[in-house]
């Protein structure tokens, strides 16, 4: 029997071309993306200093600071989550724990999927005419609009988290006479908490980065609220988040300021990202035990 030798190392041109292509694309994509981060930090770094972060903008005095925008960002995040978290978590609990499979459940599931895909400019258009008619350009208009937008994010993550809670916990609790709501409160929600928090953080990321849906609902004010009443009044006043201010400064060609804000935003996104990673880890460990 004639044996083929294995010592004849061949070079396949097509393989090498394709491999080169993969390297090229990876280099391009990763280089580009890392370049973006690097460039933004490098370009924005000099603008960011303590007074940039803690002073209020005053165009007449020529002072540029984003304190008002930072407060607005926090304000709208809190306001939106206050509305979206209970609704999102509640809806997920309904879907996972109460609903019997059927038309209604598939309808809710479908609408949640759909909400995920709707572009933010549509939310902006809708919020502008729907809530804006009543509340004008205000934090409230913005928060109500964003509530609808981030609802699916929280609902889906909660659903995922509830799914990972073993059924044996449920029957265990019910088997000793717990009512369903008691069981949900004491067993399910604590077990699903890291997942819920992950959803909440993703929602924060989305709110922080949002522009189209906010510019036409919450507007672009940059003042700090004045005192305790001011904080309440803020509800009905316009306020721009950092991302909105970034957009406006960039439109005006004030690139130094724009990159400065971009730099702060990137840092924030990085932080939120690390937080999600940490929580995801927690969720896994719980399951492994």
């Amino acid at each position, binding site marked *: 029997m004639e044996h083929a030798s294995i010592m004849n190392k061949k070079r396949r041109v097509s393989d090498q071309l394709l491999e080169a292509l993969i390297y090229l694309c990876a280099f391009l994509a990763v280089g580009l993306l890392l370049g973006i981060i690097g460039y933004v930090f490098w370009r924005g770094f000099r603008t960011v200093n303590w007074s940039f972060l803690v002073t209020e903008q005053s165009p007449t005095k020529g002072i540029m600071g984003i304190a008002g925008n930072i407060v607005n960002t926090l304000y709208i995040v809190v306001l939106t989550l206050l509305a979206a978290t209970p609704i999102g978590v509640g809806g997920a609990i309904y879907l996972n724990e109460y609903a019997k499979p059927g038309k209604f459940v598939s309808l809710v599931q479908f609408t949640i999927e759909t909400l995920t895909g709707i572009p933010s400019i549509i939310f902006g258009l809708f919020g502008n005419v729907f809530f804006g008619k009543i509340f004008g350009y205000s934090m409230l208009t913005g928060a109500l609009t964003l509530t609808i937008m981030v609802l699916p994010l929280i609902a889906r993550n909660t659903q995922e988290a509830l799914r990972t809670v073993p059924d044996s916990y449920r029957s265990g609790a019910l088997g000793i006479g717990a009512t369903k709501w008691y069981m949900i409160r004491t067993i399910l929600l604590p077990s699903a908490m890291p997942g819920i928090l992950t959803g909440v953080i993703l929602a924060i990321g989305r709110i922080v980065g949002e522009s189209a849906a906010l510019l036409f609902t919450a507007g672009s004010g940059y003042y700090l609220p004045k005192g305790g009443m001011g904080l309440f009044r803020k509800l009905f006043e*316009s306020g721009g988040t950092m991302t909105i201010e970034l957009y*406006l400064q960039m439109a005006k*060609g004030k690139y130094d300021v724009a990159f400065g804000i971009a730099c702060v935003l990137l840092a924030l996104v990085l932080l939120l990202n690390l937080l999600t990673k940490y929580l995801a880890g927690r969720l896994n460990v719980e399951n492994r035990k």
Partner: protein
Amino acid sequence: GCGSNTKETTAAPTTAAPTTAAETTKETAAETEKTTEAAGAELSGSISMSGSTSMEKFGNALAESFMEKYPDVTVTVEFTGSSAGVEAALSGASDIGNSSRNLKDEEKSAGAVENIVAIDGIAVAVDPKNTVTDLTKDQLISIYTGEVKNWSDLGGENMPIVVVGREAGSGTRGAFEEILGIEDKCVYANELDSTGAVMAKVASTPGAIGYISLDAVDDSVIALKLEGVAPSAETIKSGEYFLSRPFVMATKGEISEQNELVKALFDYVYSEEGQELAASVGLITVK
């Protein structure tokens, strides 16, 4: 060729309106001046304005100085374009709609009241390196209608013209096209939605031309002379510089029908202090 009549038609309201507005508000100003002085410090709440991006400088200055005077009041200003402002005032989304043009008849019949607070010029800006410094009205028209596409045809370098304009709802655009008689005939290469965006684009693009509020012009761009006249408060007042329009703070219903805060704001605008403020940002006062 139709430029000369438009000059008159726009000039008429700009001069007529302020007088009426000033008259009507004179009494209200006089009578509320006392009340505001008495109750002044106690005013609290918020006022929302939105509209003209040309009025950004004025609007911000007004808001800031008003808030300095009344520390417990917040004035927020959105810069969304003139038509958007009037629309917001009409729908109640804002207390005041800023407009950098006269109100249209439809807007007036829908209940908007035209309160002219200042007069502003429209500067035609080019990037600082452009060698052309002066255009005739006809040259300007031919640029914006797309007949002339290179600066060399206008005595400049061989450089393409990048025609930058504003979105359809802009007051600046409305006034500009109306004065030049080229409504709906312009061929824009960029339709940007704020004064700042136009200026930024012009500043960063060799060969670009754009129209912006005169008070917004800074040294990143050059404001062209038109028919040999440089834009300034004097030339606009005298009518030599033909591109000008009013700054309007439109309300739904008369000022007297507005809430205390809004009334106080208008009192302030029409007060000496307020008009000084307008002058300080490069506007022509109406009082």
